[in-house]
C-alpha cells in the first residue's frame, strides 16, 4: 500500500509499504477513505516530538471501511464505515471507565519510555512517535486499529466523510477545550490560535453558551474564518497589545475563560530541559508572542485556562504567581475523544454544526509531501487539508 512516512525533520514521503494485518484479537483493518493532516502532525514535521523513527507511518485523523476483523471484535462487521479516535483506548481500565480515555493504561506498548519522560504514560496514539506507542498511522491506504471494539464509530450513510472525519480529533478537541471552561451564561471566552482546533473551540464555546468569543491569531485568513463561520470577534496579535485590548474589551475584568489552541511551537517550550533542542526552541520562541503566558495574565480572577494545544516538556518563565494570585483553574490534556464521539455525531446529524467548514484543501494521498509544506508555510490560504487515497 501507499503510506505517508516520516523520513526526517521536514521530510515526509509517500512510500510503498506492506499492507497491515491483524495482530491482536481486538484489532481491525480499515481501508482508508479520507484522512487529514493535523497541527499536531506539524510538531512531528518540525521535529519537536522525540522518539520518531525514519519510516514511521503518520496520521491520526482518519476514517474508512472495515475490511478485516480480529475474532474478538463482535460489534463491527466488514463493510462498516467508521471514524476512529486518535487516542487508542482499551475500554477496560481504571481510566477508560472514568471517561479519561486519553489516559488509558493499557494501550501504549512503550509505556516505559513515556514514563521516563512524564512519570506516567498516556494512551497510545496513532502515528505519533514511539513514546506514544509507535502505532502506524492512518495517512495510508490501510491501517490497523487496535481495540476496534471500543474506538471506531459507525457512521450513517447519509453523512459524508467530510462531515464526520473530524470526530477523530479536532472537533472533540475543540469541544473538550470549551467544555473545560465550564461556560456560564454571559461568559466571554478568548481563544488563542485560529487553526482548526481553535476554529472548533470557538464554535463549541458558542454551542455551550458563551455570549462572546474573542479569537486571537496573526493569520488574516484564519481570523476571517473565525469571524465569518462563527461570528467571533477577532484580534490580530501583531496589531495590538493583547492584554490591553482584552481588558479594554471586557471592562477591565478580563475574559472569563481563555483557551490556548496554539501549543508548544508558539511558546518555545519543548520536550525536556535535558533535551538539547530545548534551548534553541526557547530562543526561537522569544520572537513570538507567548500565548499561554498572555492567557494567564489576562484571564479574569477565578477564571479558567483551558489548554488543548500540545505541550511536550518544560515551560520557561511560567507566570505561576499570577495564576495563583488570581485563583485560576487549569484544564488540559490529550482529548478523551471516545467520550465525545456520540454526542458530537448527534450535533452533526441535527444540523447544529457541519465540521467540513474548516476544509480548505483536498488532495490525493500521493500529494502528502506538498500538503505538509503547504499547511506549514501557507497558513493564510491553508487551514485544513484532507487527503483521499482514491484520488491517487
Amino acid at each position: 500500500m501507499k503510506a505517508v512516512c516520516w523520513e526526517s525533520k521536514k521530510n515526509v514521503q509517500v512510500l510503498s509499504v506492506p499492507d497491515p494485518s491483524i495482530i491482536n484479537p481486538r484489532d481491525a483493518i480499515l481501508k482508508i477513505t479520507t484522512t487529514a493532516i493535523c497541527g499536531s502532525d506539524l510538531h512531528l514535521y518540525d521535529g519537536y516530538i522525540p522518539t520518531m523513527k525514519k519510516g514511521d507511518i503518520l496520521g491520526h485523523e482518519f476514517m474508512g471501511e472495515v475490511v478485516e476483523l480480529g475474532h474478538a471484535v463482535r460489534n463491527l462487521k466488514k463493510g462498516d464505515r467508521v471514524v476512529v479516535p486518535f487516542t487508542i483506548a482499551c475500554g477496560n481500565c481504571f481510566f477508560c471507565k472514568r471517561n479519561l480515555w486519553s489516559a488509558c493504561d493499557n494501550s501504549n506498548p512503550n509505556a516505559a519510555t513515556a514514563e521516563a519522560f512524564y512519570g506516567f504514560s498516556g494512551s497510545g496514539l496513532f502515528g505519533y512517535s514511539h513514546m506514544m506507542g509507535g502505532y502506524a498511522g492512518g495517512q495510508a491506504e490501510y491501517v490497523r486499529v487496535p481495540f476496534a471494539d471500543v474506538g471506531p464509530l459507525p457512521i450513517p450513510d447519509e453523512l459524508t466523510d467530510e462531515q464526520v472525519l473530524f470526530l477523530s480529533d479536532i472537533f472533540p478537541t475543540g469541544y473538550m477545550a470549551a467544555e473545560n471552561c465550564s461556560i456560564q451564561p454571559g461568559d466571554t471566552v478568548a481563544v488563542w490560535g485560529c487553526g482548526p482546533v481553535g476554529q472548533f473551540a470557538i464554535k463549541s464555546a458558542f454551542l455551550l453558551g458563551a455570549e462572546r468569543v474573542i479569537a486571537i491569531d496573526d493569520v488574516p485568513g484564519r481570523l476571517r474564518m473565525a469571524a465569518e463561520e462563527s461570528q467571533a470577534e477577532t484580534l490580530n496579535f501583531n496589531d495590538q497589545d493583547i492584554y490591553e485590548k482584552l481588558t479594554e474589551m471586557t471592562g477591565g475584568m478580563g475574559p472569563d475563560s481563555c483557551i490556548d489552541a496554539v501549543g508548544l511551537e508558539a511558546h518555545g517550550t519543548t520536550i525536556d530541559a535535558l533535551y538539547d533542542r530545548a534551548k534553541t526552541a526557547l530562543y526561537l520562541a522569544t520572537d513570538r508572542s507567548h500565548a499561554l503566558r498572555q492567557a494567564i495574565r489576562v484571564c479574569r480572577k477565578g477564571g479558567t485556562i483551558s489548554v488543548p494545544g500540545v505541550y511536550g516538556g518544560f515551560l520557561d518563565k511560567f507566570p505561576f504567581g499570577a495564576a495563583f494570585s488570581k485563583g485560576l483553574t487549569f484544564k488540559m490534556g490529550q482529548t478523551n475523544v471516545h467520550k465525545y464521539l456520540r454526542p458530537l455525531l448527534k450535533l452533526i446529524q441535527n444540523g447544529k454544526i457541519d465540521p467540513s467548514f474548516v476544509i480548505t484543501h483536498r488532495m490525493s494521498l500521493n500529494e502528502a509531501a506538498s500538503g505538509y509544506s503547504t499547511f506549514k508555510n501557507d497558513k493564510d490560504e491553508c487551514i485544513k487539508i484532507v487527503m483521499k487515497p482514491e484520488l491517487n
Partner: protein
Amino acid sequence: MNETPLTQEVIDGANVESGENEGLFAKAAKHPFIAGGAILAGAGLAYAAVKTIQNAADTIAREVHIETSIAIDKSPEELYAFWRDFENLPLFMKNLESVIELDERKSHWMAKGVGAARVEWDAEIYNETENELIAWRSLENADVVNAGSVRFQKAPTGHGTYVRVTVNYNPPAGKLGATVAQLLGGEPTQLIKEDLRRLKQMMEVGEISTIDGQTSGRAESEDAEIPTISQEIEK
C-alpha cells in the same frame, strides 16, 4: 549449588531483628537463598529489617532484590487463581520459556535461552495464603538461586487489586552468569515492571498491546530499536 556462606548470618540477623516467625525461618534456613526480601516479606517482616541484613553482610552485595507493585482492575481471587497456575507465568513473563507443574508445590522452570545456554531450575511454593500470597523459591541445584513472592491486596474502592511482587536472585558467576545478565539486561527492575504491565493487560484487556508485526516504511534491516532517551538527548 553450594550453600552461600551468608545464610546463617542472615538468618541470625533476621531473628535478632524480628524476634518472631521462627518456624518459618527455620524452614527458610535450609534454603541457600535467604538474603533477599521475598522470604522475609513473605514472613511478614519489616522491609527495614531486610535492609539491615543486606547491609550487614557484604558477601551478599551481588544479591539482587526487586520490589514493585501494580494496580490491576480484577479481584484478588481472580488474580491469585491466574498466578497460582504457574504454567500461566510465561504468558506475561518475557524471559520465561515454560513452567511445568510437577505436583501441588513443586514446579520446573525454564528461562529463555541465550544462544545454546539454558537456564533452568526446580522451585517449590514454601508459603501460601489463598487469594493473598504465593511465595516460591528455587530448590537445590538451581542454575540461578532465586526466590519470589506475590501478594494480592485489595486496593481502595474502585482501584482494583494491588499486586505486590518481590523477586530475589543470586546472579551466578561465569558463563551462566553472562547468560543471565544478558537475559535480564541492565535493568532487572524494569523488566519485572514490564512483565507486570503485561499481566495487567492480559487480565484487564485480554490481550497485550503491541506493534510487533506492524509494517512501516523501513526495510527490516533498518528496523532498529526505539531510540533511547539518551540517544534522543544526543540528537
